């Protein structure tokens, strides 16, 4: 039950590498090999509201900060720069800060949960990770670098969601100190690493080995508070692996989600941490969900590539369907089928509880 809200022609002159909606879902930021970042209104297929030019190479990724800091966007590029943009109006953007301390392409940026303040993590092909902290009062940026985080290069970075402080009378055994910041990174050494901030230093807490090729994306699942943690990692080896841990993050177990047809490039968790979207070299977008037995099942059936938007959504592939859980029947027919309105390939299946 996914409905297409808008199709936006970005009019980028080259390949788009990332697109992200802001917190409210009002503005869309896209970045491309043409070196620009464009801002769009997410509900109107108009021309770009703004085009942010400042990079001299392909821009790999963009990230929005929490709106409590204002309209802030970070972009990272092949030109070794990270630029943080700030806007007063959606059309009016200016550079807030430029970080040029990486020696190679910066491949990924991610803003920390808002509880930690305005903090940005950057992953670069020079093998290091930078954590930029903004003192919002004075507008001063402080950078901390994790050198040699991954040999050859770091491809992706993601923050652990912040845990609210547990009340003192909570009797659960909590070794998870809420003030501890954690990061997960994936790199060219086929490893996924978990980093913990310890007295102004970042130390490697775990290294997760299972991939047999470069890790292309990692995503720490947002937590709604359940005593477990999940990390998804996507790799060039065509696997997506879900790493699960208990509350104290001492042990991680891996579970291969699926072996895809091609390299997997991009993964994203839903805000409630129960749906994972995956896409890769074959350009297929697939959505995955864990059922009550702990199995991951695909919940959209599609044919062809995601870009064939004019295709009928009803092309359900029976082969794919048989792999699904039979108990997950589509919703009853009297409910509003928003997919009828959509011409998307993300088709209309919904899990009933």
């Amino acid at each position: 039950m996914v409905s297409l809200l808008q199709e936006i022609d970005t009019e980028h002159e080259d390949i788009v590498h990332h697109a992200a909606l802001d917190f409210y879902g009002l503005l869309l930021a896209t970045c491309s090999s043409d070196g620009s970042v464009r801002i769009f209104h997410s509900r109107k297929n108009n021309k770009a509201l703004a085009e942010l030019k400042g990079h001299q190479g392909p821009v790999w990724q963009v990230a929005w900060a929490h709106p409590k800091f204002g309209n802030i966007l970070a972009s990272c590029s092949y030109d070794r720069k990270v630029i943080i943009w700030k806007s007063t109006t959606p059309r009016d953007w200016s550079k807030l800060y430029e970080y040029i301390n990486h020696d190679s392409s910066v491949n990924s940026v991610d803003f920390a949960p808002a509880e930690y303040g305005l903090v940005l993590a950057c992953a670069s092909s020079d093998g290091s990770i930078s954590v930029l902290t903004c003192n919002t009062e004075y507008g001063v940026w402080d950078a901390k670098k994790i050198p040699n985080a991954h040999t050859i290069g770091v491809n992706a970075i993601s923050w652990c969601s912040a845990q609210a402080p547990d009340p003192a009378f909570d009797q659960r055994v909590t070794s998870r100190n809420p003030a501890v910041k954690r990061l997960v990174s994936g790199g060219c050494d086929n490893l996924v690493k978990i980093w913990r901030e310890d007295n102004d230093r970042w130390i490697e807490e775990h290294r997760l080995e299972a991939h047999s090729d470069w890790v292309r994306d990692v995503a720490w699942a947002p937590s709604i508070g359940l005593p477990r943690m999940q990390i998804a990692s996507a790799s060039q080896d065509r696997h997506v692996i879900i790493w699960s841990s208990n509350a104290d993050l001492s042990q991680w177990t891996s579970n291969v989600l699926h072996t895809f047809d091609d390299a997997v490039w991009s993964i994203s968790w839903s805000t409630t941490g129960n749906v994972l979207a995956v896409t890769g070299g074959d350009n297929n977008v697939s959505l995955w969900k864990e059922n009550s037995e702990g199995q991951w099942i695909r919940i959209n059936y599609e044919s062809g590539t995601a870009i064939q938007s004019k295709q009928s959504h009803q092309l359900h592939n029976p082969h794919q369907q048989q792999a699904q859980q039979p108990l997950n029947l589509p919703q009853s027919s009297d409910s509003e089928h928003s997919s009828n309105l959509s011409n998307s390939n993300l088709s209309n299946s919904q899990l009933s509880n």
Partner: protein
Amino acid sequence: MPPTETLRAGSGNGERGAGGAGGSEQTYIIRQSNKCYEHRDSQATAMSVDYSGQWVLLAGRGHLALQRLGQDDGTLRRHERQSKYDISVAEFAICPSRREYCAIATSQNIDIVRWGPAEPYYENSLRGHTRTVTDIDWHNKNPNLLVSCSIDTFSHIWDLRDPRKPALSLNAVCMSGATQVGFNRRSGNLLAAAHDGDLRIWDIRKGSCPTHYITAHLNRVHGINWSHKRETCLATASQDGTVKYFDVCNPRRAEKIITTLSPVWRARYTPIGNGLVSIVVPHLGRGENSLLLWSNSKQTDPICSFVGHTDVILDFAWRPNREDSTEIELVTWSRDRTLRVWKIDDTMLKLCEPSPDEDEEGDSSRYEPDLSELRALTPPEFMHTLQPRPMTAASLPIAATLEPGLGANTLPMARSPSFGGVYARREETHIARSLTDQPTCSLQHEFSLLNTNMPHVDVDMLCAIKRYACFKICAADHTIILQVTFPTAYPSPNVPPDFQLCQGTTLSSDVSGVLLKVLRTNALQRVKKSRSCLEQCLRALVAAMKKRVTSVAGAGADRSQMLLQSPRLEGALSSALHDACIPFPRTSGVHFNAIGMLTTFAQVMNTKRLTLRQHQSITPRTLSAINGSGLLGNVMSTTTAQRDPNASFYLQERMIACKRLQGKQRVMRQINGTTPVVHIYDASQLLHINRDMARDFTLDKRNIVETCRRNGEICRAHGRLDLVPIWLLAELIATPHVPHESSMSCQLLFYKDPFKKSLLESLIMHYAGAGDVQTAVLLACLFDKCPAAGLMGMDMDVASCRLPAQLHAQLSPYHTVLPLDFKSSAQARASSGTWQQLKQLRSNSWSDSLDWLDFKLGQTDAFACSLIRRTKMPLFDQFKRAYADVLFGWQLLTKRAVILKHTLHTPPPSQGVEFVTECAGCGKPKRTPKCEPCKRPVLICILCCLPVRGASNACLSCGHGGHMQHMIHWFEHHTVCATGCGCSCLQRTSELLALIS
């Protein structure tokens, strides 16, 4: 095919395409080829001309072919070869003794082939590289030596007398493989290897490390060519669209730069004359396939353009004319599968020579042989000595100063090595003359008056006798070594001093030119009035330098050049310009935002099928993989994707390939697919959260049964039929099963009903676990701190409902209200002050945080109880916070506030201005209107002298205040404090607030 020669002015409609250098009037010769040989069936990727100039080798995957030149019958000798790999490079030996030998590189191996009268003999196979060999170069003096370079970053020098292993391995410790290599044509001891945008200069007598590093280009170097004349000079062609002339003694900056709009594939010096020929590869395969002849002394416009090829020119070579050394021929091989021969005659070479009006350059060529001879005699260490290279501003137009060639000025320097300084004197004759003159008083006077403490300026030398001065200016991260020479007539009108920028200056030539102009105009202004100008000029220079450098830095392309020339960054850049460890760019992506909206995009890269074929694997891993699979081998490097503004090149390239492989239908689909469209989906239904439902849901605690029913209806209305039974169940939980006339103990049991608690908990946990945080949170909130009245239903008697509730409140973990006297309570129940009485009976442990809640919720809260176990509270609070974040994203702020009210968290302390009063009894600061321990009100209204409970206001300066209404009345007519303390409250308070904000 007679040569046609026309002289035409560029018509300015883009006809010049990629070769254009942006000049305004462009006049150059257009040449057609003299001969043309077509080889339709040839798939040759490499071409070479042998020593004699009679044979051209065309080498491809399937065959080797020799084409005889000079005879129009077009004799072609073809020899099949079996290999699955393309030939990356083939080179004939350039020494006469091995004229029938050639080296052919296939994959990691190099085959030495000797061309016998009938067929080729494979003499040797040189194995040593671990990755594809990218370039080969023969030594031009020692016939046994050749050098090869490879993606494995090594450059191997082979001696054919011992072909088993390389005679010398040059290990460039860097990430990027070597792409080009070349022996020095004059000394033979030096060789240059290109690693992406960097050059490493090696001396083969000392192979452990490079003698020089040159950060030549921002982008991959496609061609290296050493000068035939000057030992230390070489030209590089790069993807970034420039050809640069370097002197390896001065690795910091290029001597001259030819700028084109498209990547330059090759650039080679003409073997005779003073020219250079470049191949420009147009973007997207469109535009002219320019083959241009340039003069070494004029970089703005080409001398000649060779037209005829319809596709990208793969390589070219010089065909030596052994009989007549004044004429040379150019042999080109293009992807259009034609071999063309072009004659370069005397007239053209003459055009390459500097025109006589550029006297500086004329001098340069006149001294040329002299100079090179001198250099050949110097020991190898000469490269480490700094060679002064002044740029003259006073005598030349700016354009000429852009070419700081080794002109006449340097000659005295080179001849007098005893002169140890880094500064060049201008002309010996000039100095000699000035030696004889007496220094004028005014110059000495000016020097003595010069403020030597100017910021950014260091005075290195002031010599009034020799009439020159040296300054070192460091500003805006750049250094300028400035030499000023004063003519004897200075400072008489119109005799300005002469300014030169010397060796050590870190500015690019165009910036230097601008700065020199600034100096000259400033000097002229002053000397016009016969005044001294030195200090004025230096100050103007520093100002201009700061301004110029920053303005140029903003201009993109120039900036990179500036960066390169800043020595601090050189090291960082040289290791950074590699793509082998940068992941392959994503063509598709997904992203969830905080409220469950999904963004997706996908663009089919048409390269895919092709790559798949050649790599026998899935989508490439690294960015550098892009180029490896192109039809052109490494012509279109990686970086087309990156740094070219028109980066879709590789897409286009692959599309053509796809067409060949897959047929049209697929191509059409894929072309359609490449439009960068982003789709935005609302996936919140998948996450079981729904904004409309969130907006409609109520948390009315007065009648929980009714609330559950209504929420069930809302679920039905929004199509969440699966939730309807859950709300029915919740309704049942809320409905008391015990008849209300039963005893008190039964009631108590009801609230502690373990079944209901467990049921509720497992329901909440189930929904939280399944990701339906909305339902979980609503259930948790509804049964948390719920009033007893609600649980019992509307029909219950008010009195009987309250009493047990109050009793129960005692049992609740959160509300430690002292037990009330039932009777008195029952009597007082009608009075409005009941809750106040209750409040007063509370113990001190009733937290402040609940106080505010208490005020708002009023009566209902006093009866709060909970069906949620206390151990589960923190966990459920986290669910609530997660849901509150979603509500924040939906901008349902009041709903969010209601949810957050159900958490245990204390609201963050107010960040704004707060009025804190001090209790008169205990002297402790209080934020509440009453001091709890002393049980006395803390703020007394200064007007009515009664304690303030409601809205209050007070002066931030004197602290006097009271009831809001009273204050408003007072300050309508007065500006000073009512107590008579003399404080003008309104003014002071506004001042203080302004100060804080």
